[in-house]
């Protein structure tokens, strides 16, 4: 089980959280987006082998969303950051 660093509550068990997939996905301009751009927004998510910026919600705790870097090979967590704030650098 992952031990997830909630930026509001501190580290808690994975079962208190729900996963929200890739972070930093921005809504396209509805009046001008092409089918390809909609497709990218709806279906394409990064799927890196290594560090991944992703969203979690602490649903059984503070119920707040946050973003965090996590390594998809080691499951190690990197820095967390709040939605719509500047993304910290990808950990080395």
């Amino acid at each position, binding site marked *: *089980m992952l031990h997830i660093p909630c930026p509001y509550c501190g580290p808690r068990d994975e079962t208190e959280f729900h996963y929200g997939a890739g972070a930093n996905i921005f809504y396209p301009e509805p009046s001008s987006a092409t*089918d390809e751009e909609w497709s990218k927004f709806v279906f394409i998510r990064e*799927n890196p082998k290594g560090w*991944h910026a992703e969203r979690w919600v602490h649903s059984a705790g503070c119920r707040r969303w946050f973003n965090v870097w996590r390594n998809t090979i080691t499951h190690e967590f990197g820095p967390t950051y709040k939605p719509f704030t500047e993304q910290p650098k990808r950990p080395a």
Partner: protein
Amino acid sequence: MATTTRRRTVELPEHPDFLWTARVTPKKVYDVIIIGGGGHGLSTAYYLAKNHGITNIAVLEKGWLAGGNMARNTTVIRSNYLWDESAGIYEHSLKLWENLEEEVGYEMFFSQRGVMSLAHSVSDLRAKARNYHANKINDIDSEWLTPEQVKEIAPIVNINPDVRYPVLGATYQPRGGIAKHDWVAWGYAKAAADMGVDIIQGCEVTGFDIRDGKVHGVKTNLGPIAAQKVGMVAAGHSSVLANLAGFDIPIQSRPLQALVSELLEQVHNTVIMSGMVHVYVSQAHKGELVMGAGTDAFNSYAQRGGFHVIEHQLAAAIELFPIFERAHLLRTWGGIVDISPDASPIIGHTPVDNLFINTGWGTGGFKATPASGWTMAHTIATGEPHELNAPFSLDRFVTGHLIDEHGAAGVAH
């Protein structure tokens, strides 16, 4: 080769000697390179040789043959999918399974012991009934079972109405069943190698030779290898390969765990799935109870998941099968599955000419091993998809022609 019976046997034959030539150094040039020496990659090579006469093929496997998801799945075979497109390709697969051992001349312990899918609520019943009727329309064998009929086929199932998720009914596909995954891989590998296919293990693709939008070969840890056509059949690593080739695919890689019990007497002679309580169970030839459930929630390439997922599926299993309560857990493991947005595969063209992709089988690819290879081979050989895989194109995520099997497949796949 030892026994050829389709009945379950308690003792499996001895492991075979080498079945194919262990070529260490790849040739410089091939007609076709298949990236991925799992079930689907091997079946693709086999059908390229058998159906299309293309034998100058290399299957490149970065680990060892069939050591990825082919070694980590729960071997369930069925074709009772909801949508016409899925029914088409999975039923073709089941028909191929029914003659596969004879065709390739190798035992695979294919056992048509039936697959049952339980319903536990009114909405679940309605969804299953819809699926049952859809199967009937598509000429796929499907039966509707009352709880009493479930008990007749599988006496160990608890049909007591006084539980949290009672069994209210089930669909049943008698032609469904299981096969022995490693023997399936060996059979395809041997038959492909006999026709001249090179199986190269320990060969990892690290890049592509792409010029003017067309692939001309791959870069590997064993040096560059040229090819007229390249097929990517890499399951959970498909995104990594696609990114090396310069495009994105709508795939997320997640851990899917499974487990076996210690060896037990034969008590369970069919396959039972429950999407609602998240467990599926069969009993292997040797006697282990084989169970699987849903994926872990997050993206991962680590081939392991959380034990709370195992705990959840065991809780469901014990409610459905009270006699499992004292069985000991022998082993758990995880594979990295390639989840697509509509729970259906992607087989066909990529944005790069002569580079083809076969991915997105997610949690249910084993059953499709024959048809996946059959249609992928057709696509590579002719440059156009077979009618069975044409609907499963990468561009359906732009056109919107999705094949949504989430509802039909549930979590158990």
